[in-house]
């Protein structure tokens, strides 16, 4: 849907601009230091494309990350935005703090499977429980890249390392975990599938709550051999998805033509829409129970379920629960923050006998 707005087939014309008058290049960042062919760079491109298409104002974005290869990537997209590259496994807490300090900013966080599923497992769980509004991308390759190839907690038992060793512990399915914890936006995609990933990112940017996307992102240096369950080859062969997602921004006036019952149309809080065109088999992703069933079934068949796994727009968020002021706390001044001299004097009265 948003694609239609960008790719006009006419020859040599001025670069396309979005509703802010910006070109896609203006959403770029510093040159990447990832290995050539790294899945993470594809994801960064998808983020750039999504941000460009929805006309995201970089000044209203805050980029968050932890530590690891993928956590470096916020430097390589949307260079005009401020960001905080925090500590290993602790992106959720820093992002939560930044979010509540300025609710008008959109927080987009990039983490890895080590950062989230090992050291960060505790903070991830509580972030999902709190339902703080942010886009949370895990760039999932089953290994620790920067420290040279150890298994991560998302590595499947069946997935051997280059030397033939196997993980000895059960793999963590972050989507399954997020679903179990009541996350209202659970999606999985693949760094090689922009057609699926970009609309999911766009919907995530619009979503009022924690939007979790587990993106399989092959590590060309340590874990992309065919036998690895996180390799390009394996994903291409085992990917299953039940809907094709499309995103319709609130400012777009496009009629989506589907036969009745052929698509699920999810209205998001800012007036945009996520349209899920049903494929041959289908299930209702707005049902958590259905999502859990399908996730379990596909997993037991060795399939990798991708797409919008579950979406629910009715959950209270961290700041709705706190009845937080519409004015960002960071913008409050002394007048709003410091009670008066009279207030202190009155209070002292209650501490005298």
């Amino acid at each position: 849907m948003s694609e239609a707005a960008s790719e006009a087939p006419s020859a040599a014309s001025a670069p396309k601009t979005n509703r802010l008058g910006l070109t896609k290049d203006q959403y770029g960042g510093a040159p990447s230091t990832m290995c050539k062919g790294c899945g993470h760079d594809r994801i960064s491109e998808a983020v750039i494309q999504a941000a460009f298409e929805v006309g995201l104002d970089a000044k209203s974005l805050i980029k968050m990350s932890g530590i690891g290869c993928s956590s470096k990537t916020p430097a390589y997209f949307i260079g005009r935005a401020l960001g905080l590259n925090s500590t290993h496994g602790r992106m959720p807490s820093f992002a939560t703090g930044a979010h509540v300090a300025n609710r008008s900013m959109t927080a987009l966080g990039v983490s890895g499977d080590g950062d989230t599923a090992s050291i960060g497992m505790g903070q991830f769980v509580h972030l999902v429980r709190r339902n703080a509004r942010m886009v949370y991308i895990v760039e999932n390759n089953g290994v620790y890249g920067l420290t040279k190839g150890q298994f991560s907690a998302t590595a499947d038992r069946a997935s051997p390392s280059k030397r033939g060793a196997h993980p000895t512990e059960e793999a963590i399915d972050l989507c399954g975990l997020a679903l179990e914890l009541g996350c209202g936006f659970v999606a999985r995609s693949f760094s090689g599938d922009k057609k699926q990933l970009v609309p999911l990112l766009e919907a995530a940017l619009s979503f009022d709550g924690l939007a979790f996307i587990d993106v399989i992102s092959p590590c060309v240096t340590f874990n992309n051999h065919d036998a690895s369950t996180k390799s390009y080859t394996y994903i291409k062969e085992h990917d299953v998805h039940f809907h094709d997602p499309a995103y319709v921004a609130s400012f777009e006036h496009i009629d989506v033509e589907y036969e009745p019952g052929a698509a699920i149309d999810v209205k998001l809080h800012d007036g945009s829409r996520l349209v899920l065109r049903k494929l041959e088999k289908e299930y209702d992703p707005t049902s958590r129970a259905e999502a859990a069933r399908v996730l379990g079934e596909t997993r037991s068949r060795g399939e990798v379920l991708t797409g919008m796994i579950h979406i629910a727009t009715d959950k209270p968020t961290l700041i709705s629960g706190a009845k937080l002021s519409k004015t960002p706390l960071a913008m409050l001044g002394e007048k709003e923050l410091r009670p008066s001299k009279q207030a202190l004097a009155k209070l002292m009265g209650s501490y005298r006998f």
Partner: protein
Amino acid sequence: MSASIVNDFSLRIATPNGTGSQTSNLIIFRSLFHMGLAPSAKNLFPSNIQGLPTWYQIRVSDAGWQARREEWQVMIPLNPMTFAQDLRESLPGTVVIDNADQKGVDAALFTGLTRYSVPFDSIAREGISDAKLRPRMRNLIYVGVVAELFGIPEPSLRAAIDAVFPKKKEVADSNFEAAMLGMRHVREKIEKRDPYRFAPADQTAGKILIEGNDAAALGCVFGGCSVVSWYPITPASSLAEYLIGHLAKMREKDADGSNRYIVIQAEDELAAIGMAIGANWAGARAMTSTSGPGISLMSENLGLGYYAEIPCVVFDVQRVGPSTGLPTRTQQSDLLQVAFQSHGDTRFPMLFPADAKEAFELSTAAFDLAEHYQTPIFVMSDLDLGMNLWVSDELEYPTTPIDRGKLATDEVLAKLADWGRYLDVDGDGVPYRTVPGKTTDPRTAHLTRGSGHDEQGRYSEDPAVYARNLDRLARKIDGTVDRLPEPVLHAAKGKKKKGAGGGELGLIAFGTTDHAVREALAGMSSPPPYLRLRAWPFHASVGDFIREHERVLVIEQNQQGQVAHLLRMAFPELAPRIESSRYYGGLPLSAAFVRGALELEPAKA
């Protein structure tokens, strides 16, 4: 009978915790305050919810000293578990008010003690009809006994009970009636055989009653704090809990009732400090409150705060360590940890409040300091200050406006020739800080990182760039002494004190030991000069003080002499003059300890 001892004794009440004795003790305390006395109240409670021993020491003195008095003159041993111990530890002549209804008591334990045996259980059974209320009300009987025996007038007792139960008149009435049972028993059945008396005094003009954690919490409100992230831990929890209550009442809301603050109970201390630093990075004043074990967990994230130069305020309400230690006992043993925590070359400025008023003032100041220097600032309180009830001067309104420090706003950037997030343009080591949303200038877009960075905040592995940045950080922290609270000097009066080994002696202390130190010095004919530290890094004047004396004794509550170490580090050429006298038993410091430390000063060969 011997002459009266008026307003100069202490009571020690032993009860199992969770039985309502807290309320009774508070009533006695408040009655005395109502009489114009400034009592000191030390609650010695166990790390448990119910059933373990608790001791409460109330002390009155001629000058309203707030320090703990080591020996007690009146003992009320109502905990069978500690009964024998309580009596054995009482000095000869101690007045004991025991429970006559307790079975199997060895009368020999009372040799040398003045015993008033009161049948608390029988009195309760006869006088308190509601069997469910009886266990709680029973403790009010000893309140009445104390009141009648030592002279607390009924109006003061009644006023105290009303103050403890401000909105529950019926409860107050039944409590007063229970107390009356005790008073009546003394009038009818007991002949006073001891010299101790309370008398109305004039020690409370302009004073309030407040817990240190409460005062610190108020300091956060007036310091403009809007984000609180915390994880419960004894003895810091009540600071956050007071803050939650004060924010709800004192922070004005939006017209639609929305809150201009948020409190998040984090899943652990790592998350608590992450949230606080994240919030500060995004431009809101955020704090967290914890104790030693929590600080240990926060170390890594605080290192990020130091190196990436993000403000934050952290309260360490210190307790006995190491490890789980004694969660309900007090100490000053986190100084070295906090000062240099986290790996690499870091330093974290610390503030040392000595009383509730300073807990308020330094708490407010901490937020300005954190934002001015763009670094985490620690308020080093302790369990004694945080959790006991203090007689304090009234809290005073801040005299300076909120200082947000050097922000890289569009206005500021327009005037600067050059800007980088970590560029020292003013020569004070402090750059201009970005806050999302407070600038539109594209120059300010960058990624804040804990990895090595250049003046523009870009990742850099260049050795010279790295060293330059780290050196500027060091200069920045050195520069904090310009704004950190200065030490307080109590100059010597009369003849200067000589240490036992000859030569002039100076005394240094910090935090709550101040009360014991001042009390000890007040009782000396020629007390040594006493410098009370209020912050680290140390002011140059601290070095001057040490230089003026041949020997300096540091009084501190830890085993390793941590502040003595910090002083020697700061003034290495003066190191041989510095010794520490260390108390680390976990109880609030007494003047007796200080007197002992001064008298036992070893002679130098």
